[in-house]
Every structure is written in structure tokens, then in C-alpha cells.
């Protein structure tokens, strides 16, 4: 295993370059790849992504990445950072355009924002800066103030009964904005687009000790 070689999974789902740039900014050369050998040799794995859940799963499957990810993240317990769609994909299931099974690493579902029963109809997608309210002192939030604003852009959100929620965010109601289960860290917001606090979060991931 290379010493702290971070890979960003390339599965044709969006702003990979933005994510790579953020790693560069904190002094870490992350590689964008879908090459199985490079992923196997990496010490940490990042799954970014914007776009539709179904396409995300389909692309992961077509590139033969599902088995590799299961092997490296679940079996070998490499630190994993999921961002936006990359967070949603770790759920068991999504209801975006029908039902689609996810990676199933956590017992969770991804559902659309629904304000039917609310007086005030909020806009969908939820786009812009919103507070991230910590549930605990997660290591990836080190040196970032509670309730800091991060940048969100999404129409679907994560629901889980597992005790893995590290923060919630208020958009009509408190939805799950980040989770952590063992070596898996996932964020609905975009740290790579959240300026100082976002770069700090990425730095915290780079500095995570891989020996869990």
C-alpha cells in the first residue's frame, strides 16, 4: 500500500476535478481513476458525484467498481469519503426515479424532499449555504465550528435508523447531512465547494490515521 495515496473514483458522475483541486489545495495529490489496480493500492478512497442515483450505480457496475469498493472499504476498511451522490450511494436503497439498490453499506434510504404537509413550500433542489449542526465531535469536524455553513445542492436526502448520524441540517425539517460508520465518512454537502471550512474537512480526511 502506498503511503497515503488517495484515489478519487472516476465513474463519469460530475465534478471530480473540483474535488481533486481541493485535495491539491491542502497539499495532497489525489489521483482520479477507475483503474482497479490503482484503487487496490490506494490507502484512502473518495467517491464524489453529482447526478442521478440510478446512473451512479449503473456506472459503478459497468466499470466493475462495486466488487472492488466492497473489498477495499468493507473488507480492508480503507477510509472512505463519500460526497453528495457519493454519500447517497452507500445507502441500501434510493427512491429517485423508481427504486434502485445502493451499495448497502449502511441501512438507509434516499428519498425526495417532500413539503406537501408544510405551510411554506420550500424550493427543490435545496441549493446554497446551510448550517451543519453536529450530533457529536466527529474527527472530520476537528477545528471546524459547529453550525458552520457548507454548500449544498441536492433534491434527495438520506434517512437512516442506524446510529451513524454525525450532523443534521434544517431545511423544512432536520435532515441527515453527514454520517460516519467505522471507516466510512459521508457528507451530503460539498466540502470541495465550501471554502475554508470545506478545505479543513478535506484536510482532516487526509490526516486521518488509516490504521483503524
Amino acid at each position, binding site marked *: 500500500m502506498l503511503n497515503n495515496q488517495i484515489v478519487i473514483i472516476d465513474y463519469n458522475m460530475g465534478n471530480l476535478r473540483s474535488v481533486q483541486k481541493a485535495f491539491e489545495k491542502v497539499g495532497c495529490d489525489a489521483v482520479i481513476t477507475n483503474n482497479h489496480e490503482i484503487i487496490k493500492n490506494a490507502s484512502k478512497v473518495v467517491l464524489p458525484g453529482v447526478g442521478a442515483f440510478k446512473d451512479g450505480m449503473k456506472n459503478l457496475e459497468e466499470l466493475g467498481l462495486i466488487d472492488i469498493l466492497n473489498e477495499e472499504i468493507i473488507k480492508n476498511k480503507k477510509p472512505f469519503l463519500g460526497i453528495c451522490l457519493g454519500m447517497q450511494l452507500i445507502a441500501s436503497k434510493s427512491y429517485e426515479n423508481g427504486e434502485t439498490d445502493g451499495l448497502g453499506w449502511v441501512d438507509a434510504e434516499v428519498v425526495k424532499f417532500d413539503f406537501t404537509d408544510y405551510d411554506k413550500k420550500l*424550493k427543490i433542489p435545496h*441549493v*446554497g449555504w446551510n448550517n451543519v449542526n453536529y450530533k457529536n465531535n466527529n474527527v472530520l469536524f476537528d477545528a471546524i465550528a459547529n453550525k458552520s455553513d457548507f454548500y449544498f445542492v441536492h433534491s434527495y436526502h438520506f434517512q437512516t435508523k442506524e446510529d451513524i448520524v454525525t450532523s443534521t441540517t434544517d431545511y423544512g425539517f432536520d435532515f441527515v447531512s453527514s454520517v460516519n460508520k467505522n471507516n466510512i465518512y459521508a457528507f451530503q454537502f460539498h466540502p470541495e*465547494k*465550501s471554502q475554508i471550512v470545506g478545505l479543513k474537512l478535506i484536510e482532516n480526511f487526509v490526516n486521518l490515521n488509516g490504521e483503524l
Partner: protein
Amino acid sequence: MLKHRVIPCVLLKNWQLVKSIHFDSFRTIGHPTSTARIYNSRNVDELIVLDIDASLNKEEINTEIITDIANECFMPLTIGGGIKTIDDIYKVLNAGADKVAINSKALEDLDFIKQASSIFGSQCIVCSIDVKKIDGKYKVFTKKDGVLDINPLELAKKYQEYGAGEILLTSVDNEGSTKGYDLELIKLFKDELEIPIILNGGMGEPHHAVEAIQNGADAVAAAYIFHFSQYTPNDIKRELVKCNIDSRIIDN
């Protein structure tokens, strides 16, 4: 709470930053990369960069300049101007942009919006509508064809139906005027769309942003005020907070 965004909008022409008045009389105001760097250091909420003549001149999208700008941006970056194909969107996103603003192509071909949003996600597709008031009625305006007999609200609803994630709504009459946003225009749009509206054109002082948001804008974009006045995006946001509007203020 979700914050109302204040978004600097910068115009490119011949890969220089320019500022227009009523979409005309352009002045060169500097280099795009250094401007992007300054906005990033000021922690602006977002940045919109539009190449104003790309569609008109059928210019190839200059991914080098987009890459240079994106390298300075750790906030969301929207790029617009001359986007005609799915491949163009790939190029712009791969250069480091997060969203694309589409104007002429959307007018010509609604299905393009559907296709683009299904491939890249709605969050990535900003539909841009330029509006001019003619005989008391709002009409869609393009640089190429002038005033069109299209109702901008109906057009925005179509864009929403076909998968747009946001609407960038610009009043050509107010653009560069510093007299404030077109409040009549935004009132027409208030509560009519499910997707966010970024209102553009006319901010000359911080309180104009308050009026825009109180009348229905989800976010405000502006160019002139940041280039030709002492006001910074943070000054605008302090005014919002003073008026009990949620805004994100980062003091450097």
C-alpha cells in the same frame, strides 16, 4: 437555515473581464483569474461567469480560461455562454465548473435541457432568461434576435418542467443601471416556481438586495456594484442580516 446567496456575476469578452450597461458599451475591467482569486479570498457564496459573445460569434468554449478561473474557486462556479452541445457541458465541467448557464440553446431546443439535466442532474443546469419590458409587458430578449414574443414566466415554467435546477433572471433594462432590481418582474415570479430564482441586473446599493429577496428572489447576482463601488459582497450580506434575512457572513 438556508442562506440567501449574493453572487458576483462577471462577464467575459475576448477572455477579458468586462462590464456592460444594458448589455452594451463594454469596459474591460481586468483579468478573469485574478478576479476569481479575489472573490475566493472574500468568501463569496458563488461565482457566475458568462461569456457574452460566445453564442453570437459561435466561438469554441475556451476551456483553458475556465480551468484558470476554476483553479481559484473553492466555491460553486457557474459558467455560461455558447453552450450548444452535451459535449460542451462535459468540457466545462471537466475544466472545474459546477454548473452551466444555458440561454440561447435552451430557447431553441427545450429537449436539450431535458437531456442535459438527465445526464448531469438538474442541480447542474441553470437556465438563463434575459428580459426586457416592452409596452408594459415583459418579453424574452436575446442579443441575436432582440425582443421575442415570449412570456418569460411561461418560459421559466417550461425550463423547470424540462429539468432546469435554477433560473438566472436578468432584467436587461436595469442591468448596469444601479437603480435597483426590477421588483415588478420578480413579483411576477414569486411563488410560481419550485426551483430557485437568481435575480440579476441593477444592484447599486446593498438595500437593493433586500428588496429583491423580500419580493421573491431566492438569490441575487450583481456585477457593477462590485466593480465600480466601494461595496463588497459582505457589505450586501450585512445589510441582509440587518433586515432579518438569513445570509452567510465570513469575516476575513
